[in-house]
């Protein structure tokens, strides 16, 4: 597709369940980012993939959060044993080249609600 695609657009889950959020980046983009935006908050960095390098996981808030990027394309963010504080909009972005000088393009986000 032309842009970054995220699915589902909305997800309601019960506390304690696991969820998987999917991101399809722009074709050919080597860098992929996950952020989350909690109500009234800014964009919190979660994880960054760049090519075949080891991902930068420094923003993941707990070991319940993990992400994979298969074949350098699609990425899945998994949250295990969800908690109410995990409720947020999860945003994925991709960019074309490593290093400075290239903006990232965002998807529409997945709104996660943990009840």
């Amino acid at each position, binding site marked *: 597709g032309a842009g970054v695609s995220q699915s589902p657009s909305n997800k309601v889950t019960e506390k304690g369940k696991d969820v998987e959020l999917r991101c399809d980046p722009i074709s050919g983009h080597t860098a992929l980012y996950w952020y989350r935006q909690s109500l009234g*908050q800014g964009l919190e960095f979660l994880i960054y993939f760049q090519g075949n390098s080891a991902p930068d996981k420094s923003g993941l808030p707990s070991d319940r959060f993990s992400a994979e990027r298969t074949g350098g394309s699609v990425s899945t963010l998994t949250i295990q044993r969800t908690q109410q504080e995990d409720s947020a909009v999860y945003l994925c972005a991709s960019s074309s080249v490593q290093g400075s000088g290239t903006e990232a393009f965002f998807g529409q986000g997945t709104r996660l609600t943990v009840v």
Partner: protein
Amino acid sequence: DQQVKQNSPSLSVQEGRISILNCDYTNSMFDYFLWYKKYPAEGPTFLISISSIKDKNEDGRFTVFLNKSAKHLSLHIVPSQPGDSAVYFCAAKDDKIIFGKGTRLHILP
């Protein structure tokens, strides 16, 4: 610690006047700075950027100024229009991109 700070949560500006959004950063390794605009229920969209080797970049009604010694950048929008009402995020990049908390801009008729 917040590496990118937007200290004004909101700003109201009269239509036609200049909007100035400010941003401070702490990491001197940042070498590229970006501004994004976000409407409700949409992902952020890229507006304008500036490399650390420059002090100004202009694109139509939008100009970004960078003061490296003060670790400060600002986005100027002139003239402000109703469609500019949105949340504006400042971001900085060394490897990954780090965002500020955003400033909500209201353009008043």
